[in-house]
């Protein structure tokens, strides 16, 4: 019964989304105020209906209603309650419903906060969001219905993939989708701006907080996924340049470019056309990511069970959204002013360079991700592009960008005034000298020296900037957090990649070995039963200082699916992580152990968190500001011209 209610709510939501896509925009086109006024209530109703459908699915999971095929495939009575809830987005159908639910939530939020926008513009924004939602609701209803019955019902379900039975993995999809789907808002603003009779540059200011919020969520989502891979996959890597990771990374890169170009577009019309394009492409790449994950067209470890008919449906949606919006852009984009010249060294020119580097990086990742497909289609050969390609092409693009992020905020508008950089010269020299000394003493590579120098420069430069402008901290904080986060992140990645050590050992309980100059002892091995798995748990101690570090890696076998999993033990610290994973036992009762020492691993997460926090603060601060000003009816008053920008 619950499932049928959910299905019904889903179909109603589809009807409402179609109405939301058609009526308000028709009203805006023909000047019918009553139809225009429908936009915001429809967004709220749409959100309510999708919420009802999603709640019904959650209820089916909590009860483990195995007569619902999707529940039977992803849950079991053994599964703890928390994971029953998160299992609802553990497969294709449910995660798609989560996708649409988040889209509806963004739409309702935009509706709630768009009282100050011109009514026709707000209506067009809602219409675009409604159209996207209608496409995906139709996709769910026609190809991926999570409420389909399975009769006769099996006695118990197949249980959730053990890899997904983890808090990090439970939170990863919602956060990631919050970001992915959030770019739909920027997309809708851009499309609405293109649909307006007279081009209006103010859309860039209205869209900024939404783009910042989406970017922040995407940063958090990618970070969480990477964090999960690090501790759950059991081999200590955190980024694999897998097609699905790239699918999330591309919108992030382009979204970063968009944030920076929106920061200037209102004041520098030369950035307008480019901003429109970036907003359209950032969401297009989100859709491309959705397609890649769910069609199985590119091989990946993350992919959902692939089904060509689903792939085709998303491809049609992708084609409509991208084709429609870019046709609109080709047709009306030229109304936006053409590019203008900027003095070399002015802040505009540096932001342009930032955009150029980020767009190039996006194209590079896109090429590496789709090249295997192109080779297969055109030449009939299958090949895979792996980490070696990305490791070669990516750092040379990113390091100049990171170096620029200190210079950009110091540069002046319009004029080529790099004198302000002069006080930072000692810092630059110190960063270079420090990096050279470190790389030399540790016998690292040139890349290591370059990475450390850039990281120190970004971190030091941003801290200097923050100190100098501390009076305006409210305004500057988002930028400082995000830029300092990048510095910390670059330092972390460089140091981990160049200094990490890995030891493969074969030890019986009671034996010991030397790891990174210290004694590692295999204390004991014991059985450790869990709620739905059996585990062997090893206790290791690593002698550092007076108190030895204790590590307890496990090997688990999950009951229903009989899947063996490695549960790594990680001793975290600000300067290094010690990462231990337990392999198999050999015939003599000795166990394969892998112990890795990863210096500065925590800095990678800290850097990512700082970036996400910066984005979030920026979005919230932005939101507050126009409210503080007396709001005039139709047009929000312009921002008090800020002396600093907060990209």
């Amino acid at each position, binding site marked *: 019964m619950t499932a049928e209610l959910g299905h019904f709510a889903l179909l109603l939501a589809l009807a409402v989304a179609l109405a939301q896509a058609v009526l308000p925009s028709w009203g805006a086109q023909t000047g019918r105020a009553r139809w225009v006024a429908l936009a915001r209530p429809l967004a709220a109703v749409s959100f309510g209906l999708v919420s009802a459908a999603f709640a019904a699915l959650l209820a089916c999971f909590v009860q483990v209603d195995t007569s619902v095929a999707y529940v039977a495939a992803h849950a079991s009575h053994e599964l703890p309650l928390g994971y029953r809830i998160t299992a609802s987005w553990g497969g294709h159908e449910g995660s798609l419903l989560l996708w649409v639910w988040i889209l509806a939530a963004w739409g309702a939020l935009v509706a709630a906060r768009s009282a100050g926008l011109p009514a026709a513009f707000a209506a067009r924004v809602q219409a675009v969001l409604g159209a996207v939602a209608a496409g995906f609701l139709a996709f769910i209803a026609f190809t991926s219905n999570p409420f389909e019955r399975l009769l006769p019902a099996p006695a118990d379900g197949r249980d959730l993939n053990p890899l997904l039975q983890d808090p990090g993995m439970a939170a990863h999809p919602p956060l990631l989708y919050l970001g992915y789907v959030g770019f739909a808002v920027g997309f809708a603003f851009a499309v609405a701006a293109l649909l307006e009779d007279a081009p209006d540059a103010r859309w860039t200011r209205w869209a900024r907080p939404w783009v910042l919020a989406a970017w922040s969520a995407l940063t958090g989502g990618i970070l969480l996924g990477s964090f999960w891979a690090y501790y759950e996959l*059991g*081999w200590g890597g955190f980024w*694999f340049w*897998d*097609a699905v990771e790239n699918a999330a990374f591309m919108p992030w890169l382009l979204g970063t470019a968009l944030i920076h170009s929106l920061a200037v577009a209102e004041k520098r019309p030369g950035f307008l*056309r480019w901003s429109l*394009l970036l907003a*359209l*492409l950032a969401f*297009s790449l989100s859709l*491309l990511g959705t*397609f890649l994950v769910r*069609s*199985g*067209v590119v*091989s*990946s*470890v993350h992919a959902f069970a692939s089904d*060509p008919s689903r*792939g*085709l449906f998303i*491809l049609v949606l*992708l*084609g409509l959204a*991208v*084709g429609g919006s*870019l*046709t609109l*852009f*080709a*047709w009306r*984009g*030229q109304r936006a002013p*053409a590019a203008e010249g900027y003095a070399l060294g002015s802040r505009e020119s540096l932001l342009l360079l930032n955009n150029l580097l980020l767009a190039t990086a996006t194209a590079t990742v896109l090429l590496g991700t*789709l090249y*295997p*497909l*192109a*080779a*297969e*289609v055109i030449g*009939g*050969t*299958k*090949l*895979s592009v*792996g*980490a*070696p390609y990305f490791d070669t092409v990516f750092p040379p693009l990113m390091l100049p960008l990171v170096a620029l992020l200190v210079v950009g905020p110091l540069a002046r508008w319009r004029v080529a005034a790099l004198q302000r950089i002069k006080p930072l010269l000692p810092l630059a020299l110190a960063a270079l000298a420090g990096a050279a000394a470190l790389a030399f003493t540790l016998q690292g590579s040139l890349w290591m020296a370059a990475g450390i120098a850039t990281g120190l420069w970004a971190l030091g430069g941003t801290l200097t900037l923050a100190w100098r402008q501390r009076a305006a901290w409210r305004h500057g904080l988002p930028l400082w957090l995000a830029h300092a986060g990048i510095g910390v992140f670059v330092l972390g990645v460089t140091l981990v990649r160049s200094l990490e050590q*890995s030891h*493969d050992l074969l030890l019986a309980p009671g034996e010991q070995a030397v790891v990174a100059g210290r004694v590692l002892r295999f204390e004991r091995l014991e059985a450790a039963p869990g709620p739905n798995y059996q585990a062997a748990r090893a206790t290791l101690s690593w002698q550092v200082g007076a108190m030895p570090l204790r590590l307890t890696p496990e090997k688990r076998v999950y009951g229903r699916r009989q899947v063996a999993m*490695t549960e790594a033990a990680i001793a975290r610290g600000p300067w290094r992580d010690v990462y231990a*994973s337990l*392999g198999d036992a050999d015939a003599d009762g000795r166990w*394969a152990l*892998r112990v890795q020492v990863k210096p500065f691993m925590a800095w990678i997460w800290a850097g990512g968190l700082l970036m996400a926090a910066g984005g979030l603060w920026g979005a919230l601060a932005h939101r507050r500001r126009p409210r503080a000003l007396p709001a005039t009816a139709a047009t929000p008053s312009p921002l008090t011209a800020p002396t600093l920008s907060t990209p």
Partner: protein
Amino acid sequence: MTPRLATLVPLLTAAALVALLARGLLQHDAQAEATSPLIGQPAPVLDLERLDGEAAPLQGEVWVLNVFASWCAPCRAELPVLGQLASEGRVRVVGLDYRDTPELGLAFLKRHGNPYALTWRDPEGRGSLAWGVTGVPETFVIDRRGVVRLRHTGPVTPQDLRQRLLPLIERLKRA
């Protein structure tokens, strides 16, 4: 370039991309058997260092060569299927660790399960060159007389296993 043309560029690029994706999607099912000049020819000799397993002569038996690398994500996904191939087809699967370091290669096998009876190291890609490998993963089936009978590019899916590899191996074993 006139402005109108410039604004058309993103649309045209996107159209080409969508066409590529559509083509890839439709082609995906009808996975054409990769052709290779090696088919019907004697298998090239692998004069390489051993990474793992026992170097036993493979003459007189049907065997499978699989090219992999620790940096290749689809190879990781393919490993359980290869294990199934070895047990259900009762054949030896020989691994060729392409452009990899021995540490990473060994750790990869230890971490994800090792389906290979024997694994060669191919750090410079010499062995792969002799076999005409264009990318990882790639799989070859070699018959009793040491003749290459099949080349499969891309990961072996459970479907490929049931529909192509296992039937062929059965046939070659009976021949």
